[in-house]
């Protein structure tokens, strides 16, 4: 489903972390929000998730306004930076968590979990505990766990920051494939321009609590709206010219 963020602001004390943020993410799109540390991107993610309430503005998923809904009522899949796996539960139990709560039968849970294990390529690891997994495997468990509840929206916070450089491009490809296969509207937050340009269908550039430009990667490179955007994506020109 599509996501519409309308005029959302959020302050902590006197610091305005989100300043009238406007963003529309189309159904099935992979939108990357990119910006330097402290620009408010994680706060925006938490506001969408419902862990933080905005001071003003509205959030819509499809034609449903979710601004005042609790986290558990929003049906949003969330994968935090550290993946946040439940350490006391096995891979299988982690993925089944949301399904159990929703009261699915054992049979339904089993078929859904097995299917997800196959999709994220974790067959055979279902009895392992999170501490027995690599960074990449943990991320895939967290993804499967988020997807299990059939969410209307998927939020990924810095999905590549805990991944080895060596496996990064592989992970990016898999993430993109998975997102396409499931067809889920996805928002991904990163501070790294290279990751942003490789991952996103579109990129929203965030700076000092505002989204200052939003568009396809090549559009942003061709027509940066101002000097700040130019500076933030500077490293991309070199790569772009190479390609």
């Amino acid at each position: 489903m599509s996501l519409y963020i309308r005029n959302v602001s959020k302050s902590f004390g006197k610091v305005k972390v989100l300043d009238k943020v406007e963003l529309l993410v189309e159904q099935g799109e992979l939108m990357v929000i990119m910006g330097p540390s402290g620009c408010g991107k994680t706060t925006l993610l938490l506001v969408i998730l419902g862990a933080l309430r905005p001071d003003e503005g509205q959030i819509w998923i499809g034609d449903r306004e979710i601004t005042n809904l609790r986290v558990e009522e929003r049906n949003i899949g969330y994968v935090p930076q550290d993946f946040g796996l439940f350490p006391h539960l096995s891979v299988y139990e982690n993925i089944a968590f949301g399904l159990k709560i929703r009261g699915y039968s054992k049979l339904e849970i089993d078929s859904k979990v097995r299917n997800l294990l196959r999709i994220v390529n974790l067959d055979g690891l279902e009895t392992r505990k999170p501490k027995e997994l690599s960074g990449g495997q943990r991320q895939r468990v967290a993804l499967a766990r988020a997807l299990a509840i059939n969410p209307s929206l998927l939020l990924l916070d810095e999905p590549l920051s805990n991944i080895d450089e060596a496996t990064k491009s592989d992970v990016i490809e898999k993430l993109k494939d998975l997102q396409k296969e499931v067809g889920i509207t996805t928002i991904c937050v990163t501070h790294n321009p290279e990751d942003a340009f490789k991952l996103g269908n579109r990129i929203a550039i965030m700076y000092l609590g505002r989204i200052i430009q939003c568009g396809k990667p090549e559009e942003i490179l061709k027509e940066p709206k101002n000097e700040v955007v130019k500076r933030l994506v500077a490293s991309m020109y070199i790569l772009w010219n190479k390609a």
Partner: protein
Amino acid sequence: MVIYLGDKFGFTISLMAFAVIIYMLVSIFYLYVAVGEHWNLVLSALLDSRVHGAIFISISSALLVGFLAIVSSIPVAYLLTYMEIRGKEILETFLIDIPQTFPPVTEGLVYLLMFGRFGLAYTYAAVIIAKFYVSAPFTISFASRRFREIKESGMDIIARSLGAKTSHILTKILLPLSARDLIAGFSLTWARAMGELAATLVFAGAIPWVTETLPVLIYLTSSESPQVAIAASVIMETLSIISLLLFKFIARRRY
């Protein structure tokens, strides 16, 4: 690991540490030395019905206080973790730090004034009430600290995003992840409750098989028949050491 004890300062520091360690260990084990060859006194005390009563009242009340501490620490820790109000730290000080350091004699007197008119003084319930106030804060403190750690890890929000309500957060996330901390808190609560003297003596008195605990028995017999007091002390100390080591073993972290 290389321990830097080689230079003068390192040597002095380790010497000081050794002195403290030896002092602490001697304090714990001196009783066994003092009993020396008079072990038969301890054995005969073990046959004394009044001592039996004190052991029973001590252990049963300390266990009960430990369980009550767990049951009451869960909602309190939840509230302290998720409530967003000013002055939370002050509330915490009143719930955790002050009870632990409050003069027990005064506490016994307060309860005597508060509950005396309801006929609660000098009953088994009075033993529980007196011990609970000074010892439950250990469990409350452990539970609050752990709940807060879990909250900071963001696991509760993830669980909520998957549809979990407060009851699920508590039963599927907070409690399983805090089990060991609750046991650790329970063990300290139990140990503190076992050793509590003044509040119990003032509020519950010393009725054998009803309110007389081991510390009360030790206190009352220390001048008239010190051998009983020493024997009871040996029993109590042994119980405390074994149980603390046992709880510590159970409460080792797995994750």
